[in-house]
């Protein structure tokens, strides 16, 4: 402790900028970690909050995935001996049509029984609206809105609110405004209540409910009710407490959460490198100080503890700053995740409040401090080993010794060989072996990075000298003479870029694969949808629309599609019900497994199921396996007759014939109508005819083939929006690392730069020396980063295929992103060099020449 005060504190004060840069590494890592996790948690918490508030006194909920179920189920549930009260619910998210207000959650309820589960105290309006269910029934255009929503939008009893419904835009009348309560705080206060039968009509539900909320009879336990209802309703239904919906939501976001986790861990890892770099430099520069301390009797343990203590303090300060900064950026990230979830999963959710978890913050601070200590462990160990006699002599400590180089090469070769050997066993055969190989490959690259940096610096020296004989040669020499000073910055940049390259490569491969899938499968000319957002399934069409559309001039064929998320093997997957016979005639693509004709024939006859490649991969399914799918009308037990490429859902898709779906889910509604035109028919003309046919009677959105594909690519863009966050992190890493390295470089080379100025070097020439050094560091980082990125991409694609999305992505190096990264990183390097270059030209020349 006394050494920290006597030795470390004055050093920190003298090198305040370097200390700040060191802490900035941890600030960056912890901020990304805290920001991403807090945002993710906030969105999940907001969803759970909404579920919880809407649930009221509900103890159990009966659901059948997104598909809902017939009205008859309600009577069965109500008749159960353990059930005190059971009420039906329909939930729909509609655009509020009010600028800046986003979506409105509409809850369709039966007021007769619902008040025993939820409170609807009115602030204003006629109590008869809730006291007498007939009032609501008789006026299906009635809405009760939350006080929050009414106040925000200047609405009162009697106000009219236009909303998009399955029957087109309808104007609803506000009959009551609810007092603020738990219920009205759900969905950020954007909540409205409607009669359930009106909701069935308005949102195209037919004679179905989305779910049943119930309370258990006094004296009976929830577990007993769960067991009774489970046995009564069969495997097609889920009977669980309201919190179960939160778990399903979490499961749906699993892939996204995993991506967030990988990114934030990488950010911490990169922060660790910045710390390592700083301490490695500090040990090198403070050798003589360490030598004096050792000569005065300091033990190796005291020296080691001194550096570890410094790193712990730096880590703590950086972690506290990072946690605060992370909370600051979490709100923005949460908004972006909310938008992503809405567009990708069709679940509108906004996090108005941050779910700041003390455990997460403490954990992040702990991880930050530990990361810092781990990063400083090697430099601390090296410091403790400093020989006092040698340390007091002047020498070149930035140089890698031949012995160290040999050890590094040998260790990297061994780890690289083990890593390559691990590839012999594929990921789906042994996860530990694959992931061990991945980690070893990264460690081998890190071990080699100083030597590779040195070799590259030697290679570029003639080029730099040719470009600028003095500035170029001196910049290259600075890198060659001090690989230790440069290598950690290069390594941090390399890691950071390797991550960007891997994610960008994955994004590009996904684009290529999705485009290929769209080109071969999504070939209708027009798509007719009930909502602008193609993944929103809360509003649906009746099946009568199929023949109606077929009658429109120019239309040759209609394919009715019903897709719905169900729970299969405890995972939310997508069921896509289509007219398989018709699809067989319009899809060109051959299946990945199974005979094309046999597959379509058996699936069309309801004798088999077709599954997507990603589902097969994630659930370890093969051709011929018999699937058991729980449905409201019983358990579907059918073999897989084909495996096809289909990217309708990240967790996987089960394709079945509509007749089978209708039979097992009692649901004949439609989400999407695919329209194929007759030869010669003009797309804009037919589109206009469809819009005209339903004007004023039904809400329809007609997208052309190109528009739908663009829409899907836009969603894909959003999904890979993380890549831009990673590029930002890479740029920050480049700036932090290079500023750090250059700050030390100009101190080390103070005399050299002084000589340069003394013999006639102008300010511009000295600046150029520093700039070229920075750009060279950027170049080294880019070359090594792209090389490691190419390896990293292979591993990431394997992980995506086997463990995240099940997508079989072709390896393709993301040349376009790489071409963007080159100027981006070089610009960042140049920006990082501005301040050090200015300080290099503005110091005292006399002092520089006398500097030892």
């Amino acid at each position, binding site marked *: 402790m006394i050494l920290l005060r006597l030795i470390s504190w004055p050093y920190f004060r003298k090198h305040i900028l370097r200390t700040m840069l060191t802490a900035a590494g941890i600030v960056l890592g912890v901020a990304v970690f805290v920001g991403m996790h807090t945002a993710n948690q906030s969105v999940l918490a907001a969803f759970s909050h909404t579920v919880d508030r809407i649930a009221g006194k509900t103890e159990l909920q009966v659901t059948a995935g997104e598909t809902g179920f017939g009205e008859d189920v309600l009577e069965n549930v109500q008749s159960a001996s353990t059930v005190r009260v059971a009420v039906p619910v329909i939930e729909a998210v509609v655009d509020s049509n009010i600028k800046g207000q986003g979506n409105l959650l509409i809850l369709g309820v039966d007021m007769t029984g619902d008040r025993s589960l939820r409170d609807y105290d009115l602030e204003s309006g006629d109590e008869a609206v809730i006291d007498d269910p007939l009032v609501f029934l008789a006026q299906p255009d009635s809405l009760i809105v939350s006080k929050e929503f009414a106040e925000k939008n200047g609405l009162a009893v009697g106000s009219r609110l236009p909303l998009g419904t399955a029957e087109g835009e309808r104007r609803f009348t506000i009959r009551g405004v609810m007092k603020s309560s738990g219920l009205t705080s759900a969905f950020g206060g954007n909540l409205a209540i409607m009669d359930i039968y009106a909701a069935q009509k308005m949102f195209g539900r037919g004679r179905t409910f989305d779910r049943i909320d119930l309370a258990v009879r006094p004296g009976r336990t929830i577990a007993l009710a769960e067991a009774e209802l489970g046995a009564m309703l069969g495997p097609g239904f889920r009977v669980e407490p309201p919190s179960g919906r939160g778990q399903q939501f979490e499961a749906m976001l699993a892939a996204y959460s995993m991506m967030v986790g990988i990114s934030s861990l990488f950010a911490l890892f990169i922060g660790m490198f910045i710390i390592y770099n700083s301490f490695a430099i500090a040990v090198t520069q403070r050798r003589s100080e360490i030598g004096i301390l050792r000569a005065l009797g300091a033990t190796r343990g005291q020296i080691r503890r001194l550096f570890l203590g410094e790193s712990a303090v730096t880590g703590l300060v950086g972690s506290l700053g990072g946690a605060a900064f992370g909370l600051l950026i979490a709100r923005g990230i949460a908004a972006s995740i909310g938008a992503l979830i809405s567009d990708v999963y069709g679940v509108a959710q906004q996090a108005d409040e941050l779910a700041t978890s003390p455990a997460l913050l403490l954990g992040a601070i702990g991880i930050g401090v530990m990361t810092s200590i781990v990063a400083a462990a090697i430099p601390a160990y090296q410091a403790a080993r400093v020989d006092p006699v040698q340390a007091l002599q002047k020498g070149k400590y930035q140089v890698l010794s031949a012995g160290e180089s040999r050890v590094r090469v040998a260790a990297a070769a061994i780890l690289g060989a083990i890593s390559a050997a691990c590839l012999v066993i594929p990921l789906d055969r042994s996860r530990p072996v694959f992931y061990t190989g991945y980690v070893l490959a990264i460690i081998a690259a890190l071990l080699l990075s100083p030597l590779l940096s040195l070799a590259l610096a030697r290679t570029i020296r003639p080029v730099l000298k040719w470009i600028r004989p003095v500035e170029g040669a001196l910049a290259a020499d600075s890198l060659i*003479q001090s690989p230790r000073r440069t290598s950690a910055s290069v390594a941090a940049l390399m890691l950071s870029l390797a991550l960007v390259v891997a994610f960008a490569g994955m994004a590009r491969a996904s684009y290529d694969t999705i485009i290929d899938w769209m080109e071969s499968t999504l070939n209708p000319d027009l798509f007719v949808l009930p909502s602008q957002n193609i993944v929103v399934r809360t509003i649906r069409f009746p099946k009568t629309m199929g023949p109606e559309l077929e009658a429109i001039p120019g239309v040759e064929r209609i394919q009715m599609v019903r897709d719905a998320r169900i729970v299969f093997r405890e995972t939310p997957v997508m069921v896509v019900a289509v007219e398989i016979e018709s699809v067989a005639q319009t899809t060109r693509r051959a299946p990945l497994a199974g005979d094309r004709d046999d597959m379509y024939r058996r699936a069309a006859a309801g004798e088999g199921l077709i599954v997507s490649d990603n589902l097969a991969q994630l659930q370890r399914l093969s051709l011929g396996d018999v699937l058991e799918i729980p449905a409201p009308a019983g358990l579907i037990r059918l073999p897989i007759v084909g495996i096809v490429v289909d990217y309708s859902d990240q967790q996987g898709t089960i394709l079945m014939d509509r007749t089978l779906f209708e039979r097992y889910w009692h649901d004949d509604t439609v989400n999407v109508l695919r329209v194929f035109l007759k030869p010669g028919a003009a797309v804009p003309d037919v589109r206009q005819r469809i819009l005209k046919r339903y004007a004023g009677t039904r809400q329809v959105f007609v997208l052309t083939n190109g528009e739908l594909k663009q829409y899907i690519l836009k969603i894909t863009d959003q999904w890979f929006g993380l890549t831009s966050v990673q590029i930002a992190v890479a740029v920050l890493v480049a700036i932090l690392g290079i500023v750090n390295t250059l700050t030390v470089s100009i101190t080390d080379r103070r005399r050299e730069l002084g000589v340069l100025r003394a*013999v006639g070097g102008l300010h511009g020439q000295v600046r150029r020396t520093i700039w070229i050094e920075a750009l060279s560091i950027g170049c080294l980082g880019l070359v090594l980063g792209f090389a490691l990125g190419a390896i990293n991409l292979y591993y990431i694609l394997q992980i995506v295929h086997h463990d995240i999305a099940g997508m079989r992505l072709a390896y393709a190096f993301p040349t376009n992103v790489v071409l963007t990264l080159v100027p981006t990183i070089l610009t960042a390097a140049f920006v990082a060099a501005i301040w050090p270059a200015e300080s290099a030209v503005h110091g005292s020349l006399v002092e520089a020449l006398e500097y030892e």
Partner: protein
Amino acid sequence: MATASRSAPSVPPLPATTPAIVELDHVSKQFQGKRQVTALDDVSLVIPRGQMVSIIGPSGSGKSTLLNLVGGLDRPTSGEVRVDGEALAGLSDDRLTRVRRDKIGFIFQFFNLLPTLSCLENVGLPLHLRGWPRRKVDERARELLTLVQLGARMDHLPDELSGGERQRVAIARALSIYPPILLADEPTGNLDTKTGDDILGLIRDLHATLGSTVIIVTHDMTVAASCNRTIALRDGRVVEDVNRNVTS
């Protein structure tokens, strides 16, 4: 103008018509720290073109400060320094650098060669900075290294040379532009006697051959005695200014 002058009878003064190349007019230099230190105190000097001048005095007398001011490495607190008729006071850093690289060659006690550059590259450095074509730089650097008898060591790094050889490279570098003024700060201070004599001989030969004005800061009275003129400093003031006739 010297504040004190003691002309040796055997050394005829330079003709009155010889133009001044270095002029110091009431120059003072103070360093600010916890307490103010006066390194030069109201010094006025005129050094004519072509003269070989030694500056002597004990440590802290202001010798190096005077050399730094003449070389444009530092700026006076008050007074004026003129080099070849150009007042340095109002010049920007870059303009001052141009004066240095066009008119002044430096020889330092610790050589100040760039360790990563070869002898040839070190000598060519000021020429590259002036933007000379590579071929011409190469030719001049080779010519100068041959002149200082290091023709066989052109591609060696400074670390591979002896102290005397390093100083020869430094001299070659200082001469690379054939500057009208050559400033040497203890050029033999880091060398053994024999090597020091060789280096001094070389400087005197070059002075005779090239006709540059040479200003040498030294502790060594032998070195001082070999110059046309010796200026002695004490506590930042000129206490003695001796002109003598010296034959090379």
